[in-house]
């Protein structure tokens, strides 16, 4: 049986989520279009409203501030491109970090193609974007700052509240990609002064194919839609809402909120046990800040081995060699290069990511398999 340690790529659907989604699909009373004016449409709207409230509660938002999307990629695109375009008359400068998820970086690339200017901040050697670095990058024409709360490759946690306060004081919109943070790190969009926040259901034991963008009440009307054709989601995301998907995300959000403290404490213990086991192997380096990191990710580089072979030698464990979204690439991780890792060490990186179903036995076994795989590959490799 494969040990699944790739929860940063996708989490298994919680049985309660699956049950409620299946119930929605089987319920004859919930098959109407949620935009329909009749009673059956109203029933669906009510069910969607419950889900919206659950997602809002997870991040300290109001239900009306949640816009459904197809996932975090769409939410990131809507936030970055939608907000930048809407505010183009005020300024055309965006600040982000070079370590952001590719969906934010690609959206910024697209804005550059349209004449916007983008500053991509370089992290320090621990993967941190210092609020002071953000402050230094701000210009009179800056309209948007976009940062992720937890890095999807290294698990490094950024000081969102400090950056949010800074942006708020300058009248600049602040977008946060919180996909890896939701259900693991404390999130409160009010105290963190966040205007826009992207969420993904399948990163928190919900279904794939649904996400959400929080748009604060104060920011409403300051984001331009990317899609056209209907008035759903206040015109920001037209298209019939996928009832069973958003219900699934709502249940996942409720479970994440209820279990965040206990899940986080348990995963922190398991994460530290894992690092203790794999860190004992000589030539293994932890990527990212040793303390400021999320409870579920351990990213390491291994000297003297090649990353793809390491992954294959450990095929009894489902892992990523970096971000799952970059798994088709043969290039060393740009995020790890920003940490100052050599191309060889960046190429040999492995990301272990734990989840709600991970057990201490699995962690111990993964540690043993890692040590054996590294020993095997070092026996095969020529002397440096």
């Amino acid at each position, binding site marked *: 049986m494969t040990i699944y340690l790739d929860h940063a790529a996708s989490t298994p659907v919680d049985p309660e989520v699956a049950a409620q989604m299946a119930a929605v699909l089987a319920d004859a009373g919930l098959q109407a279009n949620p935009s329909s004016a009749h009673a059956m449409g109203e029933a669906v709207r009510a069910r969607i409203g419950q889900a919206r409230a659950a997602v809002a509660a997870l991040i300290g938002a109001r239900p009306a501030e949640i816009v459904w999307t197809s996932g975090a990629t769409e939410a990131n695109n809507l936030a970055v491109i939608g907000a930048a375009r809407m505010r183009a008359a005020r300024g055309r400068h965006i600040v982000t970090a070079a370590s952001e998820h590719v969906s934010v970086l690609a959206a910024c690339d697209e804005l550059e193609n349209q004449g916007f200017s983008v500053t991509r901040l370089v992290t320090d050697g621990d993967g941190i974007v210092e609020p002071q670095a953000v402050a230094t990058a701000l210009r009179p024409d800056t309209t948007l700052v976009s940062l992720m709360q937890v890095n999807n490759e290294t698990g490094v946690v950024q000081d969102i509240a400090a950056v949010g306060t800074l942006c708020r004081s300058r009248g600049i919109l602040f977008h946060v990609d919180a996909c890896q943070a939701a259900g693991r790190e404390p999130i409160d969009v009010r105290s963190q002064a966040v205007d826009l926040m992207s969420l993904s259901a399948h990163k928190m034991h919900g279904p794939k194919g649904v996400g959400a963008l929080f748009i604060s009440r104060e920011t409403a009307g300051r984001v331009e839609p990317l899609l056209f054709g209907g008035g759903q989601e206040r015109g920001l995301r037209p298209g019939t809402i996928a009832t069973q998907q958003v219900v699934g995300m709502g249940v996942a959000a409720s479970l994440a909120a209820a279990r965040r403290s206990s899940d986080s404490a348990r995963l922190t213990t398991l994460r530290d046990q894992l690092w203790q086991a794999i860190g004992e192997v000589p030539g293994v380096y932890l990527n990212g800040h040793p303390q400021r990191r999320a409870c579920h990710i351990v990213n390491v580089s291994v000297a003297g081995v090649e990353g793809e072979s390491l992954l294959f030698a450990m095929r009894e464990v489902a892992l990523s060699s970096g971000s799952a979204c970059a798994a088709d690439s043969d290039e060393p991780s740009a995020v790890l290069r920003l940490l100052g890792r050599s191309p060889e060490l960046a190429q040999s990186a492995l990301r272990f990511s734990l989840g709600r179903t991970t057990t201490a036995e699995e962690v111990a076994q993964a540690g043993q398999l890692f040590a054996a795989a590294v020993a095997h590959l070092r026996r*095969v490799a020529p002397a440096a």
Partner: protein
Amino acid sequence: MCYSPLVREHFDRPRQLGPPRGPGPVARGLSGSPAEGARILIEARVVGGRLEEVTFRALGCPWVIAGCSLAAERLVGAPVAALAGFDPAALAAELDLPVERLGRLLILQDALRNCLADWDTTQPATPR
């Protein structure tokens, strides 16, 4: 990535892992670098113009390790000149190697050629 049963077999149980164990002079050929995707060392012990022992060490992807293992195993017993006759395209087809990875087997080809050149340099009086 999807690896063939042949790649799996030679990756898990590589044959001809260096260094050579028998007595006598050894020729060495090194090629590639981690930045190029593979670093390969080929060592050959030649007796009477024949490859008595051929071993490898490799840092690279599973196809590189499997390719080195297969190539080294097949060269044992061949005339020393066979080090220059390695056909990367044929081995690539046998391993189901993705076309974008063919360069990795060219590094193996270079290592084999460098090994032959080393033999020619260090043992000029020995007939091929």
